[in-house]
């Protein structure tokens, strides 16, 4: 749970907790929720209270002047007020909310969830607000369509898997005098990446683990910055065809193979160890920033953090993997032992 708790008011907390427990019994988490009477609450809104006050004043006016038309008008408004909750309730009742996707986000940013709201039946729905309380949320109408997809945002602070609190779905249709609402738990879990924090330029060429033998051996010349041409060597069967010196062959000479001297791993590794002396979260944030930067500059990059290692590559999928690894890094640093 990531929503802030108010320590100063333990009673309020206890109450909220009780409320949550009650709610979770009443409407357990599910990716698809259909609103019905057991989940909906309805009360007059503040405007509704004002309306009642006006009605009371009108009644006084009508009674004191013994004016039947004013009294009739008062009763009309009272009756209107009595009819309204049915409509407000009907506006939400039977709506189905379904989680389509919970989009990953960076800590300190807004995490967004895509939710499909649909109605069965022909009854149109209007002015429905879906969102997490402190936020504005999204408004939608199901007037000329029977389903709509909305995106609601939740500010996320900490990285990792973040369980979203209950969503509030609310409507004041038709006159705003009643408020009908429900708390639904769509079982939303956000993957929150660390907040990108700049740690200087990309550590290109910086290697800490020269001596290490890479189990993921990739031809070094496929990488930038590592192809120091060292001369030609006569071709021998079994040599990689990719290193043939075609130019020389075309010029009528024998088949030669280009020889490369450097065997050091000069690929870009975003390494945990490069950021020694900082705390875990800062390191993760820095790595996150580097990964984004490398992706933007289209440089292949790998990730080495305690417990996992991703070979250098590039592209949206790779970035996703890298960021996920960073996001899910255990909170207590170095759980999986030191980098090997």
């Amino acid at each position, binding site marked *: 749970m990531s929503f802030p708790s108010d320590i100063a008011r333990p009673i309020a907390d206890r109450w909220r907790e009780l409320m949550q427990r009650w709610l979770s019994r009443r409407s357990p988490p599910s990716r698809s929720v259909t609103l019905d009477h057991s989940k909906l609450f309805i009360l007059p809104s*503040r*405007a509704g209270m*004002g*309306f009642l*006050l*006006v009605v009371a*004043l*009108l009644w*006084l*006016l*009508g*009674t*004191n*002047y*013994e*004016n*039947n*038309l*004013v*009294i*009739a*008008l*008062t*009763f*009309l*408004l*009272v*009756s*209107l007020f*009595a*009819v*309204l909750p*049915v*409509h407000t*309730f*009907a506006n939400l*009742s*039977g709506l189905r909310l379904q989680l389509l996707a919970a989009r990953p986000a960076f800590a300190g940013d807004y995490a967004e969830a895509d939710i499909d709201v649909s109605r*069965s*039946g*022909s*009854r149109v729905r*209007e*002015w429905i*607000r879906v969102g997490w309380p402190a*936020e*504005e*949320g999204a*408004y939608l*109408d199901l*007037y000329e369509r029977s389903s709509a997809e909305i995106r609601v945002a939740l500010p996320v602070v900490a990285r990792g898997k973040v369980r979203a609190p209950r969503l509030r779905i609310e409507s*004041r*249709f*038709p*006159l*705003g*005098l009643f408020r009908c609402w429900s708390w639904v738990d769509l079982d939303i879990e956000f993957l929150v990446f660390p907040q990108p924090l700049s740690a200087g330029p990309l550590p290109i060429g910086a290697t800490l683990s020269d001596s290490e033998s890479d189990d993921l051996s990739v031809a070094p010349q496929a990488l930038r910055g590592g192809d120091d041409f060292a001369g030609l060597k006569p071709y021998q069967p079994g040599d990689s065809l990719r290193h043939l010196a075609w130019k020389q062959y075309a010029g009528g000479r024998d088949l030669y193979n280009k020889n490369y001297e450097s065997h050091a791993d000069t690929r870009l590794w975003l390494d945990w160890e490069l950021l020694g002396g900082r705390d875990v979260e800062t390191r993760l944030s820095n790595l996150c920033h580097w990964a984004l930067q490398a992706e933007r500059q289209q440089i292949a990059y790998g990730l080495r953090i305690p417990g996992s290692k991703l070979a250098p590559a590039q592209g949206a999928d790779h970035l996703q993997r890298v960021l996920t690894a960073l996001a899910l890094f255990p909170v207590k640093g170095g759980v999986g032992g030191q980098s090997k």
Partner: protein
Amino acid sequence: MANQSELLPRESLLWIFAAQFAALLPHFAQLPLWIVCAWAFAVYWRLEVFRGRRDLPGRTVKLLVVGLTVAGLALSYRRWFALEPMVALLAISFTLKNLELVSRRDAFLSLLLAYFVAATLFVYEQTIPYALYGTVCVVVVTAALAAQLGHFSARPRRALGLSLRLLAQAVPLMLLLFIVMPRLGPLWAVPQNNSGTTTGISDSMTPGDFTRLSKSDKPALRIAFDGPIPPPEQRYWRGLVYADFDGRRWSQGFGVDPREGGVVRWQGREQKLPEVGPRYRYRVIQEATNNPWLFAMARPISDTRGVGETADDRLLKKRPVYNRFAYDVRSWPRETLTDDRELSDFEYRRYLQLPRGGNPRTRAWAEEFHASGLGAEEISAHVLKYFNRSFTYTLKPPALGADSIDDFLFGSQQGFCEHFASSYVFTMRAAGVPARVVAGYQGGEWVEQEEYLLVREYDAHAWAEIWLPGRGWQRVDPTAAVSPERIRDGLQSAAADEFMQDSLLQLHRISVLNRLRLEWDMINYRWYQTVVSFDSDKQENLLKKLLGEVSPLRLAAFIAVPVALALTGMLLWLWLSNRGRRLPPASRLYQKFCRRMARAGIARRPGEAPRDFARRVGIEMPALAPMVERITAAFERAAYGEDPAAEKQLRRLLRQWSPRANFVFGRTADGGRIATGE
């Protein structure tokens, strides 16, 4: 709430202004011009703000405006606790609110105010057109309220439609409440709308007053009888008694008006009822006159609250009739009572009072009667005979000089009821007979098979009463001596040529229109009878009629049954409208199948085609596969091949089969599993 701080969109603003306009429109005529202008200007300003051409006024400007309006109100209205200043105050609060109409909360506040302003309209008038207009107002304000939510609702047709629908749904409950809810009397004295000028018969009579009234065909009274109906010549609706004459003007004089110390028996006080029962019982609905006097036949008693009887056999209302007012009357015609009362000295002086000088010829003429020792009745007969001989009844009497009675009796000899009454009473007094002028209405027109008698302003009449020792006050109508038609058939036939001559269109001459006017009056009358004057008495009567007896149990049932019905209806509606369009039978059967499969642990995904689902079932639960395949095939043929036989087959298959039973069977019976797994 976050949404309340939202800025108002254009539609919201326009709707609010429309609602304000609708609520204020009927008040425009009464409000001081500056308030109307201020309101219009505030609307203009707010729209300019919306267009981004101006800013909302700052704090100083607002304070200045508040100060100005308070000063303006203070200047425009002397009295604060009255209806008009209240309406003006509401109009001003609209204006001021418009200048800071920013959030949804402001919008709500403004619209709630609009409801109130719309209601104040009814305090002024309770007629059908006003009621209709008030309804329109409520619809518009409700639509404006609806338009505050979402841009779909703000579309004019949608908002109005929604508002109408909601209000229509509210109407049954409103009627129920209207009938059942008890009416409490006024909780405290409220300021009345007393700005209107008095209409109808005034508290004094000068020549020409009644001629003026004869030009108006506005309704004055509507009288419905319960039981016997008096013959036309008895229909004298007494309103005022003029005892004091100053040579030109007849007035009530000291001691008659209760405010001047006269004796009024207010209803509720112990009073001795005559031994014989009343001859006539009737209910009078009087239009607003802004005067306290009511109209009834002689010797009336009324049980209606706030109505009292005076010593000179009239009815008075405690407070002026500012609105249409209904009162029940019982009348004992004088001849049915034996009045052994004697006139006091004060009363003698009062009813013999004459101005010091003037009208010498009349005085001399009367003196002759007095000297010859004739009785009061004989004198009266002589005078009436004189009238009958050479006088003419006209709506256009010539102007009279300083000695108006002399001029009339011996000069012009043409006059209207007031002339006859005035000169008759003068003559009688001069001859020593106590006499007085009575003003009121005479006659009336039947509406809708004698449902009620409609008395119009032109039925205003003045006649006389003389005191006969031993018999008391007797009505004498000098006009009847001149023009009996006036009494029998009304003014229209008595003075056909002159009647309503000044009106632009001689509408009364077109009989269709006359009938329409009577119809309209009928509708108004019914409206007033059923709605406007619906009080606790009528409420009790109605409930008795509806329920047989008014017991708490029956009342509770009366309320509970319709409410329960409505509730059931609404729940039914909710349930029905939540269901999608009814699917064809084959699809419903297949859905049933899917639900069963879901319970058995394998649910069809939304976008999964039946055959794909069957394939998946075949992989995940091979034991079920053969049956599922048969069902799927049958469904496909039924739903997509539109084969009725397949639908029957599908129904049969589903009736016999349940996946759970099958599943258990398939698991336990190995042979079956092998057989179905292949």
